[in-house]
């Protein structure tokens, strides 16, 4: 399997008033295409920061990060946006759906930025919603959906531009265990279909799903197994 992500000695420092917060203090990480990675650790360990950097939402303060062989640290805002658009799908704890538009439109949103024609957008959005079991929720607004359904819409949205990598930040954090299990099953299925999955969670049963479990503490990787 080819190396998709290669990080070396990545640090992230945030200014916080007079002082600085060292969120990551030197992370080395390699992720291969098709892996199912879980990142876990106590709060404040740098999980979210690492996820943001992997997902190209943020840039490391120092160290190197190559994604598909490209140096992410050297990219400008537009290039990072293109990476996020084409290569990465995000799933968030709070779903982050647009409240005033129906499920299918939420799913089609990434395709707008990918300049997909409107008709094709809607058709594809409905197809993806079907694949996560929401064929009868296509025209519902987010507030007409249950938490589990909303998260499935969010996963559908993450899949819209057929990304290589799915990054899920506490995807089960706002769901009961049954709904959470459903979401994890969908992610497992996607993994089986060849997607690279990165789940960030502090919940043990979620972290257990990963083929490779990364444990973060104090801004560095404490162990990998």
């Amino acid at each position, binding site marked *: 399997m080819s190396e998709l992500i290669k990080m070396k000695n990545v640090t992230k420092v945030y200014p916080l008033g007079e002082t600085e917060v060292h969120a990551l203090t030197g992370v080395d990480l390699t992720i291969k295409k098709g892996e199912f990675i879980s990142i876990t650790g106590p709060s404040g360990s740098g999980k979210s920061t690492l996820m*943001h950097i992997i997902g190209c*939402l943020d840039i490391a303060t120092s160290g190197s990060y190559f994604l598909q062989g490209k140096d992410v640290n050297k990219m400008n805002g537009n290039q990072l946006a293109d990476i996020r658009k*084409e290569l990465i799908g995000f799933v*968030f704890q709070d779903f*982050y759906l647009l409240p005033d538009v129906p499920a299918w439109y939420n799913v089609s949103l990434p395709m707008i*930025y990918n*300049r*997909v*024609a409107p008709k094709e957008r809607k058709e594809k959005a409905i197809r993806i919603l079907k694949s996560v079991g929401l064929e009868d929720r296509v025209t519902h607004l987010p507030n007409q959906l249950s938490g589990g359904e909303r998260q499935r819409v969010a996963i559908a949205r993450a899949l819209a531009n057929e990304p290589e990598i799915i990054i899920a930040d506490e995807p089960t954090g706002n769901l009961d265990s049954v709904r959470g299990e459903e979401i994890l099953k969908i992610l497992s299925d996607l993994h089986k279909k060849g997607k690279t999955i990165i789940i960030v969670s502090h919940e043990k049963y979620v972290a257990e799903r990963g083929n490779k479990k990364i444990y973060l503490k104090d801004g560095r990787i404490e162990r990998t197994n």
Partner: protein
Amino acid sequence: MFRGFLIEILRSSIESIKANKLRSLLTTLGIVIGVMTVIGVMSVISGLKNNVANTFSQLGKNVLYVDKYPWSMGHMSREEWDKIRKRDNIDTKELEALKEYGTSLEYVSPLVTRNLNMNRGEKEAAEVEINGTSEDFDRIRNRNVKLGRFLSKDDLKYKRHVCVLGTKVVETLFPDENPVGNKVKIQGRQFNVIGVLEEKGEMMGWNMDNVAVIPFTTMTEFTGRSDRSITIAIYAENEEEATEEIRWILRGARNLKPGEEDDFSINSSEALITQFNQLTKTIFLISIAIAAISLIVGGIGIMNIMLVSVSERTREIGVRKAIGAKSSEILGQFLMESVVICLVGGFLGILLGASLTKLISIMSNGNLPFYIPIWSIFLGFGFCCSIGIFFGYYPARKASKLSPVEALRYE
């Protein structure tokens, strides 16, 4: 595909405005009032201009009026005014000179006008515009008789007590009779009605049918004041040439030495229209200034509400960026939203402005026609677009510069 994207951000702008209907409406109020003012004022002025041009043209095309006073005085100092007041009266001497020497002057008529009451038994026509003039006046003013005849040379020569009436006067004094051959009284003097003028209608409150025409010679005799200046109305095909010729004849008749200023005025309806246009230009500029202030205030309102909107939707901006939106695309989205709000305001403003114009037109009894210049609508929309872009740029830029991580964390 870029067009598709534009349509998409247009759609989402409309959605977001629909989601905040009241807020958007209040925000856009400044724009509405500004555009309404522009449309309203422009329409009224345009209507007024057309109307005034029409009215003035009733004074006759290709007609020049020799007067003691100029019609359009503009700004004049005390001394200049005194100089004009001390001019010698225009008199029959000048009239005769023009008649005798004028080669480019087709018709030359004296004109003295008084507003007097006319009576017939118990009936009275009040404030009739009585023109004392000559037999050529019908051709100068383009006023034909529909009944009877106009004045003749002999009427003037023998100072006959005859008159030609306008239809308004006929309506009042002869409701069901043919007036020709009947008698009317002006200031106690009896006049034979010899003709009736064709109807001309009303313009800006000036009823052109509330008139009577009598011989100039009769008029000066019975008004009895030879110390008053008269007007000489002249019809000429070539106004410029005629003006020059009149000047030279009058300078001769009034014994002006070379280098001395003209001590008479040659007026035409053109000059009046020019003066009126200057007046409306001033009104126009003032109202544009008011509208501009209102539009700027409106623009600041737009900026304010867009800042609120950006702050409210920080999370949304974060999501859009996370799924691949570029800064420029976020900028475009918020700019579009601000432009759409402004255009909605502009549309309402045009609608209200048009209604206002209609209302004014109705209240003026049709004296001000309902007329909206197309270019004022384009101008209104153009203004709105510019304001939307100008005042929406800062908030939109703020939105586009948000870091995705911080935007997503925003509570």
